[in-house]
């Protein structure tokens, strides 16, 4: 089964979309210890992302945690498991990580592609998909929200 290694901001975005549960049920998602740690650290803050991180942590029993050599960022650990062929795609909504992942030659997709998968599988309607994108976009400022603006073309 195709495995998707997913980063912290994509998990948060999917939580905001309201479809994190459905995504976990439909797809084989994996994280690393660093991503787990990042969620725990984020959960210490009393802002929206902090609350979302705490909610995401409750889903982690259904997500596989892959073992890696500890690295300084979640992206670095995701690259390592991709290089070791332990996952087929990296799901990252971090705009700053795009060039790093590109240089490493790792197949990268966004959380919006996982929503697209649910849509094509008939698990969410076109309207639900577009509303989910809007919820994700609303939570992010300019540039970080580009992914959710571009995601609209997936539901055309």
């Amino acid at each position: 089964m195709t495995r998707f290694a997913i980063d912290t901001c994509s998990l948060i975005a999917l939580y905001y979309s309201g479809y994190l549960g459905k995504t976990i049920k439909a797809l084989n998602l994996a994280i690393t210890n660093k991503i787990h740690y990042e969620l725990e650290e984020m959960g210490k803050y009393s802002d929206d992302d902090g609350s979302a991180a705490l909610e995401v942590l409750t889903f982690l029993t259904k997500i596989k945690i892959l073992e890696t050599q500890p690295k300084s960022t979640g992206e670095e650990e995701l690259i390592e498991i991709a290089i070791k062929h332990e996952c087929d795609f990296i799901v990252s909504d971090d705009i700053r990580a795009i060039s790093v992942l590109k240089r490493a030659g790792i197949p990268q997709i966004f959380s919006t592609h996982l929503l697209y998968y649910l849509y094509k599988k008939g698990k969410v309607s076109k309207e639900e998909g577009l509303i989910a994108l809007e919820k994700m976009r609303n939570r992010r400022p300019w540039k970080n929200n580009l992914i959710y603006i571009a995601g609209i073309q997936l539901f055309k």
Partner: protein
Amino acid sequence: MTTQINIRLDKRLVQEIDALARMLHVPRSEWVRLKLAEMVKESILKYREVLALEYSMGHISFEEMRNALGSDAEDVKMVHEITRKGKKEMDKLLK
């Protein structure tokens, strides 16, 4: 550095602005300046998002977008390309 501009406003609107400025204990011109700055900032953000969407939908060219967004246009293009490429990958997976 500031530049003076002259605008004509509806009398009723000026009365409403004056009432608000009095309530907030700020001079009329200061209140108008602050509001104008807020509106411009908000409009620029909305305009950028609309341009990114128009480009994603193929309604405007990269050049047109770059003229308006500057270097941010490169990021829009990069995200658009990954979205398109990722869609193909997901379609393959769904077959």
